[in-house]
């Protein structure tokens, strides 16, 4: 199918973009790798798309990753992201998709939100009303539901600096490479213990104690591809493997 008609704006500044996003029916367009598919299927019908990819204010690429930074530009920023990146969409979608766009979309099986939660990162939001920061763990509220208000733009995500003594691991189970994860795991082993972030199993990424995995405590989803019991078994088996790998890599 083809998208319903909309207006398109390429703003010259972040201020102009936020002004435009304050109007009813406006949506931000970044890499478009989730949104354009939804537009094509008319699951989304905005009146106005605000293209944020040309705003220099959104190009920062360090421990803060701006909204205009594409997934193919993330290599080398953080060891956990490097491990997760090959599982994010496909080679052909990482050319266009963004970290912040994936976070704003809030798919429960998405890898980058999972990494952000595992690392204890933060989400920076801006609107014409002002800026605010939300902890990643509080940002994801349900499937495709986040703490972002309608007029807000995810302007950046913030990753803690890599801990050279920590071990990081990423594992994923999907029907085919690049498909949505039936279950995905990001493990961080440091001096405090092992944090295991689990994606694709519950309605949001959840963090559990990697040294005392209790799969039954997770509210696992049933869907067409896998039932809740299978997802819990993946947590017990593949989650454990991720924890062991992270422990091996810990200095």
């Amino acid at each position, binding site marked *: 199918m083809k998208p319903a008609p909309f207006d*398109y704006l390429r703003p010259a500044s972040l201020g102009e973009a936020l002004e435009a996003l304050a109007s009813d029916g406006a949506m931000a367009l970044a890499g478009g790798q989730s949104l354009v598919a939804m537009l094509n299927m008319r699951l989304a019908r905005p009146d106005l798309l605000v293209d944020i990819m040309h705003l220099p204010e959104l190009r920062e690429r360090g421990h803060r990753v701006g909204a205009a930074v594409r997934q193919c530009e993330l290599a080398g920023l953080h060891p956990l992201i490097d491990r997760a990146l090959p599982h994010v969409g496909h080679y*052909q979608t990482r050319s266009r998709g963004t970290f912040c766009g994936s976070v704003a979309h809030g798919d429960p099986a998405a890898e980058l939100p999972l990494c952000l939660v595992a690392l204890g990162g933060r989400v920076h939001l801006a609107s014409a009303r002002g800026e605010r920061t939300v902890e990643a763990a509080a940002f994801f509220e349900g499937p495709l539901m986040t703490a972002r208000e309608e007029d807000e733009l995810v302007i950046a995500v913030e990753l803690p600096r890599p801990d050279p003594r920590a071990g990081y691991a990423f594992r994923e189970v999907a029907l085919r490479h690049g498909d949505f994860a039936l279950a995905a795991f990001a493990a961080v082993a440091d001096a405090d213990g092992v944090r295991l972030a689990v994606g694709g199993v519950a309605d949001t990424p959840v963090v559990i104690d990697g040294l005392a995995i209790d799969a039954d405590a997770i509210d696992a989803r049933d869907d067409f591809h896998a039932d809740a019991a299978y997802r819990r078994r993946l947590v017990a088996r593949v989650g454990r493997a991720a924890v062991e790998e992270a422990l091996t890599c810990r200095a």
Partner: protein
Amino acid sequence: MPRMTVNGEAVEAAAEPRLLLSDFLRHTLGLTGTHVGCEHGVCGACTVLIDGRPARSCLAFAVQCEGAEIMTVEGLEEGPLHTAFRRHFALQCGFCTAGILMSLTAFLRETPRPSEREVREVLSGHLCRCTGYTPIVAAALEAADA
């Protein structure tokens, strides 16, 4: 009126905002070598290069490509990849082939000596219902060797 470069030529043509890059290439410019399969970013048939990077042209609007350099299968020069595809019978109906050639062109430029696994990961972004992929993998590895 988005302006862009397509296969090295400057192009300027009317496009309402909702016009997908795939339709802009095929209908407005008549470049029908880019095929459209699923139109929601799954099959990879419509893959083109946008500023040198492989991307699904059904997941981009023409207006987003203002100022971009686009390359389609019509812009590819005959080279080792084409030869290897012929030698290995890496296509049958050919519907997916244009997209795969675009992905592999970008990938082999970045990764001149890929492993089979890396090639398969790139191909995971394309659906081919004829070949079972094995000859495509063989052709890609041979083209990398050439």
